[in-house]
């Protein structure tokens, strides 16, 4: 069962990314597709095959432990590489004007302070308890922290704010 694939390491795996590959797995499964990424933890290959229409794609993930052989078929051209790299990114938020961003930032800051979290404004970002940063546009998915527990709590809190006051972001609930 063991082939060397899981032992190659990140630098070697990177050389296969954005290429069309043919993967043999299990006893007699064979799949081909554009290699989007290789999970460094499980050595699993993520293969993408684009569908007819824009935005449709079929994805196959081959588990690292089942890989027998990986063969490169072709390199991706500029367009395919672009398509691959943007396929799983979160949708681009349209850029908001500075006044709107300031309003949102203030609203989020007041909500966090109301819930007794120390918040500071650092330029365009909010710093919470010194360990979590919120960047524009200050939604729950714009939080960055190395502390999983705080990240989870703040995200839950921010989602509660959205639920409680969907139409009045500026009003402080009394």
């Amino acid at each position: 069962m063991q082939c060397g694939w899981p032992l190659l390491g990140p630098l070697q795996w990177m050389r296969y990314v954005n290429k069309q590959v043919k993967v043999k797995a299990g006893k007699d499964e064979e799949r081909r597709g554009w290699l989007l990424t290789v999970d460094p933890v499980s050595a699993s290959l993520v293969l993408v095959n684009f569908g007819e229409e824009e935005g449709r794609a079929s994805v196959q993930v081959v588990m690292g432990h089942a890989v027998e052989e990986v063969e490169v078929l072709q390199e991706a051209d500029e367009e395919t590489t672009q398509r691959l790299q943007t396929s799983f990114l979160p949708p681009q938020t349209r850029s908001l004007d500075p006044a709107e961003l300031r309003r949102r930032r203030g609203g989020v800051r007041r909500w966090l302070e109301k819930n007794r979290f120390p918040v500071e404004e650092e330029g365009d970002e909010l710093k919470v308890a010194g360990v979590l940063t919120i960047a524009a546009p200050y939604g729950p998915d714009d939080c960055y922290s190395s502390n999983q527990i705080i990240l989870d709590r703040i995200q839950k809190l921010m989602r509660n704010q959205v639920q409680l006051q969907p139409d009045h972001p500026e009003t402080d609930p009394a």
Partner: protein
Amino acid sequence: MTTPVSVLRLPKGPDPNSRGFDPKSPRFIALCRTSIATSPASEADAEQLPREQHARSVLRESFLRCLLSMANKKIQFHMYERVTVEATFRASDIDVLNFQVSDLHTPIGVQKEALIRCQDVILFTFDA
């Protein structure tokens, strides 16, 4: 098969957590590397180490976004012994050793919630 049916439970193993998910079982410890080692080449070459770490995080972030996009979608799992099952993906653990799924369609019924061991899976597919 659309109506969930109760699935007969297989007999319990020798200890309460013995369906392969016990974190203290020798199988779990053998399969789950608690830390991912740097490659020997990177340990020798101090310049290569940051590049390897950067590659590692780029690859992992991409993979995590892929897992995120799978949430609540129907996935087909192709497992050993030519077994193919369909289920709705809910979550994965950090080491990609277990997947939590709902509505797992098996030949003996639909299991409302289930854990699938990744070591049993050869590959899985879904439509993005």
